[in-house]
């Protein structure tokens, strides 16, 4: 499956009440709180088989699908 589609699927599973495709910043728009970020991190780690460094678990890396994908790719590089 396309990586971006998979991330959107995870977001929908996490918070089905929100429309992630029309948000420019998931965290600032209130679509993800810090506990959602923790849950999403474990979902990303399990699906993409990566370990996300604790220092990378910051709001800006979860602001958009592109940012999340970049986080996954950088985590692949550092594992």
């Amino acid at each position, binding site marked *: 499956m396309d990586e971006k589609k998979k991330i959107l699927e995870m977001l929908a599973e996490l918070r*089905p009440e929100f429309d992630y495709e029309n948000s420019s910043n998931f965290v600032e728009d209130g679509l993800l*709180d*810090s506990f959602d970020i*923790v849950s999403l991190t*474990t979902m990303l780690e399990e699906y993409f088989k990566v370990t996300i*460094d*604790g*220092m990378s*678990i910051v709001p800006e890396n979860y602001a958009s699908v592109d940012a999340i994908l970049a986080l996954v790719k950088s985590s692949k590089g550092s594992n």
Partner: protein
Amino acid sequence: MITNFSGKKISAMLGILPETIGHFDDEIGNYSFPAQQTMRLKKVMGYNQHRLSKETSTVSDFGVFGLNYILQNGWIKKEEIGAVVVVSLCPDYFVPHNSNIIAGNCGLGDGVICLDIAQGCCGFLIGLMQSFMLLDHLPNKKVVLVNGDVLSHKISKRDRNDYPLIGDAATITVVENDASAKSIYYEMHMDGSRGGALKIPAGGFRMPASSDTAKMQDLGDGNFRALDHMHMDGSEIFNFVQTDVASMLLNVFNKGVAKIEDFDYFFFHQPNRFMLQKLAEKVGIPKDKLFMNLVENFGNPSGASIPLTAIYNCRESLLNENKRCCLAAFGSGLAWGVMFMDIGNLDYCEMVESNL
């Protein structure tokens, strides 16, 4: 502060639990978040069950129960006790002090030093530090170190970020002089400028408790709590653990004080599973030597978490063998520290339930 202690050892450890168990699945309805979202946190954070004391039970009740248990079972004689050190965030009163209350109720004489220390998650390391220093002046005595908190009384039941994690418990550790004991490395850091990350705003002299401070409100994150309740800024604490605590550990392992492979056990304070797992990954601590099961079984009991982890997971081996242990704690203050010491061949090590 970085120092070494010599000629000190732990000779006995007792864990005291309240008998009431709160189950996360039963509490989900208290929170204002979608159940599916909350359930997902169960595995990630280690939300499962936690021990809850009765509303009327206090830390001194746990201390009296534990110390009487120790005395009645012959672990220690009254006349051997030189000091009672209590580390807690939950005083029975402003005056008198928990240590005096415990000593008085257990019939210890007036020659026993009673000392309360107000510390949270680093309470075991700070309590050991104080006990070691006292023992330098009590050559033929033992120190009874009580770590305990009943913080469930100070957490809103409608606060999903904090309530599922917290657990009530106490531990008693007997500390004594032993000329043959291996040197103990100790490092402790404190930064009061970030103290607001873990705070109970009301109830002290700055903001006395009142009907206003008891009012429940949504403080913007979907959790309902009052100013009388404890609040943890999860993001700030997470960043603190990933930066300051990780740096301290990496530094101490990289500068040659000790190597990770030197240790049999890593007994760390346990705020939640996710935070501890990320710390272990960053520092490179093998997961089979770092115990992360306290929150899911008992909740986070603040300063009692390290001894409770040791008793719950390693009772048999600590009774029968000597183990090289790395203890690390971090939390309110903010404070963070590490201690390397041998623990083992204990005279006694036990977990008991109370009706408190």
